Protein backbone atom coordinates (compact mmCIF):
# COMPACT_ATOMS: atom_id res chain seq x y z
CA UNK A 1 0.00 0.00 0.00
CA UNK A 2 2.81 2.35 0.90
CA UNK A 3 4.54 1.56 -2.37
CA UNK A 4 1.48 2.65 -4.29
CA UNK A 5 1.63 6.12 -2.74
CA UNK A 6 5.24 6.38 -3.91
CA UNK A 7 4.15 5.24 -7.33
CA UNK A 8 1.48 7.94 -7.45
CA UNK A 9 3.99 10.61 -6.44
CA UNK A 10 6.47 9.39 -9.02
CA UNK A 11 3.82 9.37 -11.73
CA UNK A 12 3.13 13.00 -10.94
CA UNK A 13 6.86 13.73 -11.03
CA UNK A 14 7.18 12.04 -14.43
CA UNK A 15 4.18 14.04 -15.57
CA UNK A 16 5.98 17.16 -14.43
CA UNK A 17 9.08 16.07 -16.32
CA UNK A 18 7.09 15.55 -19.50
CA UNK A 19 5.29 18.81 -18.99
CA UNK A 20 8.49 20.77 -18.58
CA UNK A 21 9.89 19.04 -21.67
CA UNK A 22 6.75 19.85 -23.63
CA UNK A 23 6.99 23.49 -22.60
CA UNK A 24 10.49 23.66 -24.01
CA UNK A 25 9.43 22.24 -27.37
CA UNK A 26 8.64 24.80 -30.04
CA UNK A 27 5.17 26.39 -29.76
CA UNK A 28 2.35 24.54 -31.44
CA UNK A 29 2.31 25.09 -35.16
CA UNK A 30 5.61 26.94 -35.40
CA UNK A 31 8.48 24.50 -35.86
CA UNK A 32 11.91 26.13 -35.91
CA UNK A 33 14.39 25.31 -38.66
CA UNK A 34 13.23 22.35 -40.73
CA UNK A 35 16.00 21.60 -43.25
CA UNK A 36 15.36 17.87 -43.51
CA UNK A 37 11.62 18.16 -44.09
CA UNK A 38 12.04 20.99 -46.57
CA UNK A 39 14.45 18.80 -48.48
CA UNK A 40 11.88 16.01 -48.60
CA UNK A 41 9.12 18.32 -49.76
CA UNK A 42 11.30 19.85 -52.45
CA UNK A 43 12.86 16.65 -53.76
CA UNK A 44 10.27 13.91 -53.40
CA UNK A 45 9.02 14.45 -56.93
CA UNK A 46 12.43 14.82 -58.48
CA UNK A 47 14.22 11.95 -56.79
CA UNK A 48 11.56 9.40 -56.04
CA UNK A 49 8.97 10.47 -58.60
CA UNK A 50 6.16 10.19 -56.08
CA UNK A 51 3.53 12.85 -55.55
CA UNK A 52 2.83 11.74 -52.00
CA UNK A 53 5.72 13.03 -49.93
CA UNK A 54 4.85 10.83 -46.97
CA UNK A 55 4.91 7.70 -49.11
CA UNK A 56 8.20 8.71 -50.64
CA UNK A 57 9.65 9.02 -47.14
CA UNK A 58 8.11 5.80 -45.93
CA UNK A 59 9.28 3.70 -48.86
CA UNK A 60 12.30 5.49 -50.24
CA UNK A 61 14.12 7.83 -47.88
CA UNK A 62 13.36 5.74 -44.83
CA UNK A 63 12.52 2.49 -46.57
CA UNK A 64 14.55 0.45 -44.17
CA UNK A 65 12.35 1.55 -41.27
CA UNK A 66 9.38 0.26 -43.17
CA UNK A 67 11.02 -3.08 -43.67
CA UNK A 68 11.57 -3.17 -39.92
CA UNK A 69 7.96 -2.25 -39.35
CA UNK A 70 6.80 -5.05 -41.61
CA UNK A 71 9.10 -7.32 -39.67
CA UNK A 72 7.49 -6.24 -36.39
CA UNK A 73 4.06 -7.07 -37.76
CA UNK A 74 5.39 -10.39 -39.04
CA UNK A 75 6.89 -11.08 -35.63
CA UNK A 76 3.62 -10.39 -33.88
CA UNK A 77 1.72 -12.62 -36.32
CA UNK A 78 4.18 -15.46 -35.92
CA UNK A 79 4.10 -15.06 -32.14
CA UNK A 80 0.31 -15.21 -32.08
CA UNK A 81 0.40 -18.23 -34.38
CA UNK A 82 2.98 -19.92 -32.16
CA UNK A 83 0.89 -19.14 -29.11
CA UNK A 84 -2.31 -20.62 -30.56
CA UNK A 85 -0.64 -23.38 -32.53
CA UNK A 86 -2.25 -26.76 -32.74
CA UNK A 87 -1.13 -29.08 -30.04
CA UNK A 88 0.69 -32.27 -30.66
CA UNK A 89 4.30 -33.13 -31.24
CA UNK A 90 6.29 -32.97 -34.40
Amino acid at each position, binding site marked *: MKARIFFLISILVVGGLLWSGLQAVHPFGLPNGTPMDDYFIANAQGE*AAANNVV*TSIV*FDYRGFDT*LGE*GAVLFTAVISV*AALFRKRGHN
Partner: protein
Amino acid sequence: MNPLSVVARTVCNLFAWFLAIFGIYVIVHGHLTPGGGFQGGAVVATFMAFLLVAHGGEKMQSWVRKDRFTLMECFGLTLFISAGLLGMSKTFFFNFLAKAGGVFGGVLPIGPNAGALNTSGTIALMNLSVGIEVVGGLSMILLYMFSAAHPQEPMGREESGHDR
Protein backbone atom coordinates in the same frame (compact mmCIF):
# COMPACT_ATOMS: atom_id res chain seq x y z
CA MET B 1 -18.92 -16.88 -32.71
CA ASN B 2 -22.32 -17.52 -34.23
CA PRO B 3 -23.31 -16.19 -37.63
CA LEU B 4 -25.62 -13.20 -37.69
CA SER B 5 -29.14 -13.02 -39.13
CA VAL B 6 -29.76 -13.14 -42.87
CA VAL B 7 -30.33 -9.40 -43.22
CA ALA B 8 -27.21 -8.46 -41.35
CA ARG B 9 -25.23 -11.05 -43.29
CA THR B 10 -26.35 -9.63 -46.61
CA VAL B 11 -25.52 -6.09 -45.59
CA CYS B 12 -22.14 -7.19 -44.32
CA ASN B 13 -21.43 -9.08 -47.52
CA LEU B 14 -22.25 -6.08 -49.63
CA PHE B 15 -20.37 -3.62 -47.50
CA ALA B 16 -17.35 -5.89 -47.19
CA TRP B 17 -16.81 -5.92 -50.92
CA PHE B 18 -16.92 -2.16 -51.04
CA LEU B 19 -14.26 -2.15 -48.34
CA ALA B 20 -12.12 -4.56 -50.30
CA ILE B 21 -12.32 -2.47 -53.45
CA PHE B 22 -11.55 0.68 -51.51
CA GLY B 23 -8.58 -0.99 -49.82
CA ILE B 24 -7.12 -2.12 -53.12
CA TYR B 25 -7.60 1.37 -54.50
CA VAL B 26 -5.74 2.83 -51.52
CA ILE B 27 -2.88 0.38 -51.97
CA VAL B 28 -2.47 0.96 -55.69
CA HIS B 29 -2.69 4.75 -55.48
CA GLY B 30 -0.34 4.93 -52.52
CA HIS B 31 2.16 7.19 -54.22
CA LEU B 32 -0.46 9.63 -55.51
CA THR B 33 -3.11 10.05 -52.85
CA PRO B 34 -2.98 9.65 -49.09
CA GLY B 35 -2.67 6.01 -48.26
CA GLY B 36 -0.37 3.18 -49.09
CA GLY B 37 0.36 -0.39 -48.29
CA PHE B 38 -0.33 -0.27 -44.59
CA GLN B 39 -3.54 1.71 -44.72
CA GLY B 40 -4.96 -0.22 -47.63
CA GLY B 41 -3.91 -3.51 -46.10
CA ALA B 42 -5.65 -2.58 -42.87
CA VAL B 43 -8.82 -1.71 -44.78
CA VAL B 44 -8.76 -5.02 -46.64
CA ALA B 45 -8.20 -6.79 -43.35
CA THR B 46 -11.31 -5.06 -42.04
CA PHE B 47 -13.06 -6.79 -44.94
CA MET B 48 -11.93 -10.07 -43.44
CA ALA B 49 -13.22 -8.96 -40.05
CA PHE B 50 -16.61 -8.17 -41.59
CA LEU B 51 -16.84 -11.59 -43.19
CA LEU B 52 -15.80 -13.21 -39.94
CA VAL B 53 -18.45 -11.37 -37.98
CA ALA B 54 -21.11 -12.08 -40.57
CA HIS B 55 -20.48 -15.75 -41.14
CA GLY B 56 -18.79 -16.96 -38.00
CA GLY B 57 -15.40 -18.47 -37.52
CA GLU B 58 -16.06 -22.07 -38.54
CA LYS B 59 -17.46 -21.29 -41.95
CA MET B 60 -14.69 -18.83 -42.60
CA GLN B 61 -12.09 -21.42 -41.77
CA SER B 62 -13.64 -23.82 -44.20
CA TRP B 63 -13.31 -21.22 -46.95
CA VAL B 64 -9.74 -20.12 -46.42
CA ARG B 65 -6.86 -21.88 -44.73
CA LYS B 66 -4.39 -20.18 -42.48
CA ASP B 67 -1.57 -21.61 -44.54
CA ARG B 68 -2.63 -19.41 -47.43
CA PHE B 69 -2.22 -16.35 -45.31
CA THR B 70 1.16 -17.47 -44.07
CA LEU B 71 2.21 -17.90 -47.66
CA MET B 72 0.81 -14.49 -48.53
CA GLU B 73 2.64 -12.82 -45.69
CA CYS B 74 5.96 -14.48 -46.40
CA PHE B 75 5.58 -13.73 -50.08
CA GLY B 76 4.85 -10.06 -49.46
CA LEU B 77 7.83 -9.60 -47.16
CA THR B 78 10.16 -11.54 -49.43
CA LEU B 79 9.07 -9.38 -52.34
CA PHE B 80 9.73 -6.30 -50.23
CA ILE B 81 13.21 -7.33 -49.16
CA SER B 82 14.00 -8.47 -52.70
CA ALA B 83 12.99 -5.05 -54.02
CA GLY B 84 15.50 -3.68 -51.54
CA LEU B 85 18.18 -6.19 -52.43
CA LEU B 86 17.81 -5.57 -56.16
CA GLY B 87 19.06 -2.05 -55.62
CA MET B 88 22.30 -3.57 -54.42
CA SER B 89 24.07 -2.38 -57.55
CA LYS B 90 24.26 0.90 -55.71
CA THR B 91 23.12 0.36 -52.14
CA PHE B 92 20.47 -1.53 -50.28
CA PHE B 93 17.03 0.06 -50.86
CA PHE B 94 18.23 2.08 -53.82
CA ASN B 95 15.23 3.13 -55.87
CA PHE B 96 16.54 1.60 -59.08
CA LEU B 97 13.26 1.74 -61.00
CA ALA B 98 12.49 5.41 -60.60
CA LYS B 99 12.63 7.47 -63.80
CA ALA B 100 14.09 4.51 -65.66
CA GLY B 101 11.20 4.02 -68.03
CA GLY B 102 9.15 0.87 -68.05
CA VAL B 103 6.14 0.08 -65.91
CA PHE B 104 7.02 2.16 -62.89
CA GLY B 105 9.57 4.52 -64.32
CA GLY B 106 7.56 7.57 -65.36
CA VAL B 107 8.93 11.05 -64.75
CA LEU B 108 6.90 13.60 -62.81
CA PRO B 109 6.82 17.35 -63.37
CA ILE B 110 7.81 19.33 -60.31
CA GLY B 111 5.08 21.20 -58.51
CA PRO B 112 1.39 20.54 -57.91
CA ASN B 113 0.06 18.17 -60.55
CA ALA B 114 -2.32 15.30 -60.88
CA GLY B 115 0.45 12.72 -61.22
CA ALA B 116 0.36 9.45 -63.08
CA LEU B 117 0.01 5.87 -61.91
CA ASN B 118 3.16 4.63 -63.62
CA THR B 119 5.65 6.69 -61.62
CA SER B 120 7.67 6.31 -58.43
CA GLY B 121 9.78 3.23 -59.14
CA THR B 122 10.09 0.72 -56.35
CA ILE B 123 7.69 2.69 -54.19
CA ALA B 124 4.69 1.29 -56.03
CA LEU B 125 6.18 -2.20 -55.92
CA MET B 126 6.84 -1.92 -52.19
CA ASN B 127 3.34 -0.59 -51.62
CA LEU B 128 1.95 -3.68 -53.29
CA SER B 129 4.17 -6.06 -51.37
CA VAL B 130 3.45 -4.39 -48.04
CA GLY B 131 -0.24 -4.48 -48.88
CA ILE B 132 -0.06 -8.23 -49.47
CA GLU B 133 1.90 -8.71 -46.27
CA VAL B 134 -0.43 -6.64 -44.11
CA VAL B 135 -3.55 -8.33 -45.45
CA GLY B 136 -2.06 -11.74 -44.79
CA GLY B 137 -0.73 -10.85 -41.37
CA LEU B 138 -3.77 -9.10 -39.99
CA SER B 139 -6.15 -11.74 -41.33
CA MET B 140 -4.01 -14.37 -39.70
CA ILE B 141 -4.13 -12.57 -36.35
CA LEU B 142 -7.90 -12.27 -36.62
CA LEU B 143 -8.41 -15.89 -37.64
CA TYR B 144 -6.16 -17.23 -34.91
CA MET B 145 -7.76 -15.11 -32.24
CA PHE B 146 -11.24 -16.07 -33.45
CA SER B 147 -10.45 -19.74 -33.38
CA ALA B 148 -8.84 -19.40 -29.96
CA ALA B 149 -11.82 -17.55 -28.49
CA HIS B 150 -13.75 -20.83 -28.44
CA PRO B 151 -11.19 -23.57 -27.98
CA GLN B 152 -12.28 -27.04 -28.93
CA GLU B 153 -9.61 -28.73 -26.88
CA PRO B 154 -9.08 -28.21 -23.16
CA MET B 155 -5.77 -26.93 -21.91
CA GLY B 156 -3.57 -29.62 -20.57
CA ARG B 157 0.10 -29.80 -19.85
CA GLU B 158 0.94 -32.41 -22.42
CA GLU B 159 3.62 -30.47 -24.20
CA SER B 160 4.99 -28.67 -21.23
CA GLY B 161 8.72 -28.63 -21.52
CA HIS B 162 10.60 -31.80 -20.93
CA ASP B 163 8.64 -32.88 -17.90
CA ARG B 164 8.39 -36.57 -17.62
